[in-house]
């Protein structure tokens, strides 16, 4: 049974002169306790997807099924119990904590909002949470400005954990941190995932981080998933040209195509207001043929390409 199933998820933003197809038909599932990495360039719709999963954004189309319940258009009150199962960690540790609240109050917020009184009291629970994320529980009364970026992100994680969720959407949780701190936070998340059996949708543009953390990986391009699969499959044997291009940009990690070396993508990402016909990647793809312009390749066998690697 999958914890989260997404079918044809779509988000279109109205804009001047048309609509921005930020997310344009996503299908994927996340099993309980699983970590799914969602990677792609900036503007490919990762963050929008993450926001939709926790219902901060209203999907334009498609379905989100969480624990067998369709939550796509669930109203505020009905959504409430489910929110406790479904939390989010934000990218910017500076913007994600209310500067006027104490750390204790920030972490306790999900509890107070939902009227939950944990045994032993809110304060005790908050201190446990702080300890769990590696912060000094004594710092309960301190304000965000007194903490470093990494520490703040830990506070954000503690807040996400407060309701004991089953799934956490982590939206680029480390990209705003220094490299050394990134490692600490990633390790913390990995540990929490193991200890608490959490499922993650881990959104990142950094393939190395994803490889380190995720069991499965989905690669997005212009609002669609172009390739999805087990981590090792993707990293060892990428089949979509775009995945290959992305991986080739990582010098140390990529051990692919001995002959090809680094692939440089030509041209800019097309505008999501007017995506190319057929395969969206065709304008930058070195393998593109006529069929790519007319027919959109379906996501079959984990890849959406007319001419996937290793198929010919």
């Amino acid at each position, binding site marked *: 049974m999958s914890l989260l199933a997404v079918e044809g998820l779509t988000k279109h933003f109205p804009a001047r002169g048309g609509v921005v197809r930020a997310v344009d038909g996503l299908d994927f599932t996340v099993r309980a306790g699983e970590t799914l990495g969602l990677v792609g360039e900036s503007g490919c719709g990762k963050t929008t997807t993450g*926001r939709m999963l926790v*219902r*901060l954004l209203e999907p334009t189309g498609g379905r989100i099924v969480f624990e067998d319940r369709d939550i796509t258009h669930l109203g*505020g009150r009905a*959504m*409430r119990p489910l*929110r*406790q199962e*479904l*939390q*989010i960690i*934000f*990218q910017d540790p500076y*913007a*994600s904590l*209310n500067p*006027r*609240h*104490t*750390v204790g109050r*920030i972490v306790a*917020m999900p509890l107070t*909002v*939902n009227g939950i009184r944990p045994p032993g009291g809110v304060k005790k629970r908050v201190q446990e949470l702080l300890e769990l*994320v*590696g*912060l*000094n529980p*004594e*710092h*309960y*009364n*301190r*304000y965000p*400005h*007194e*903490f*470093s970026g*990494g*520490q703040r992100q830990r506070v*954000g994680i503690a*807040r996400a954990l407060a309701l004991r969720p089953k799934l956490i959407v982590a939206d680029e949780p480390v990209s705003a941190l220094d*490299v*050394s*701190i*990134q*490692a*600490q936070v990633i*390790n*913390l998340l*990995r*540990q929490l995932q193991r200890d608490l059996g959490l499922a993650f949708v881990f959104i990142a543009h*950094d393939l*190395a*981080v994803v490889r*380190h953390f995720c069991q499965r990986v989905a690669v997005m391009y212009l609002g669609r998933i172009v390739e999805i699969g087990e981590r090792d499959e993707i990293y060892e044997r990428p089949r979509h040209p775009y995945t290959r291009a992305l991986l080739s940009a*990582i*010098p*140390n*990690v990529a051990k692919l195509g001995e002959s090809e070396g680094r692939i440089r993508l030509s041209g800019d990402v097309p505008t999501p207001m007017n995506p190319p016909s057929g395969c969206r990647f065709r304008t930058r793809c070195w393998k593109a043929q006529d069929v790519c312009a007319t027919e959109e390749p379906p996501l079959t066998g984990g890849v959406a390409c007319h001419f996937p690697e290793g198929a010919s």
Partner: protein
Amino acid sequence: MSLSPEVLEPVPVADAAPVEKGVVGRSPGQLAWTRLRRDRTAMISGCTLLLLMLVALAAPLIEVLYGVGPHDEFKELLTRRGAIPLGYAGGVSADHWFGIEPGTGRDIFIRMVYGLRTSIFIALASALVTAGIGVTAGILAGYLGGWVDTVISWITDFALALPFLIFALAIMRPVEMRFYGPRDEVPVWFRVTVLIAIFAAFGWTSTARLVRGQVISLREREFIEAARASGAGLGHILFRQLLPNLWAPILVSFSLAVPAYVTGEAALSFLGIGIVDPTPDFGAMIFRSIAYLQTDPAYVFFPGITIFALVLAFNLFGDALRDALDPKSSR
């Protein structure tokens, strides 16, 4: 940016940058207070304000100690021919510290004490009402956006487009007639209320704009989304999450609105709207005194210097408050 695999090996979870010892953190408000306390200008202007307000509050007590009331007349101390105070500096004497008013022969000092009361009350109350309306409208417009924002912003534009002085001038009389008819005495509190209402009706827009802008920049902040993701309702988001972040601009605009209303009330007196004789009022006093600039400068000087000090102190304090609340700006 990329990580080498070595770095990604598990490392012990620990505080990377331990914060200084101590259990209780200092809130931004407390920090601001500390900064304010260290600011000499703020302290001097703050004390001046406090003193003036104390004087205003203690007016009846001062009257008892001083021995002269605001309506007592000393016409015998005026010249018969020009109705100008006899003696030096506008009739300054041991009995009348700041001299007496030409024409009416009333004591300037005690009238200033009571006038301070009227003026400060009107200004503070107007600023409070203004802030209340402005903050509510600003938060609603900023957070809810959409048609609410459109409507509130439009009302703001509309209120800005109405010429304040002309409306203030035109509205007083019909309102009086409506509530008191042509024969009943119009109580002072009623005029005061109308003044406050006029100020509020025209003054809330700037606060609303300011707050709206702040809210818009805060609205997309992730801590708001975090609250929403946790299932927080509108009330919680507006009042628990947004409002605490708005105190700084609200306080600053409040502290700058008060002096604006003090001078505004005086300006209305200049046009003959507002508090009428014999109620002691700063605006009315200043307005009346200007004519005596050449013949009885003391009459202009004492109220003039006091209102200047009052407004200056408010302005200085407002500036200091802004600096204290937002250490990034200036200093």
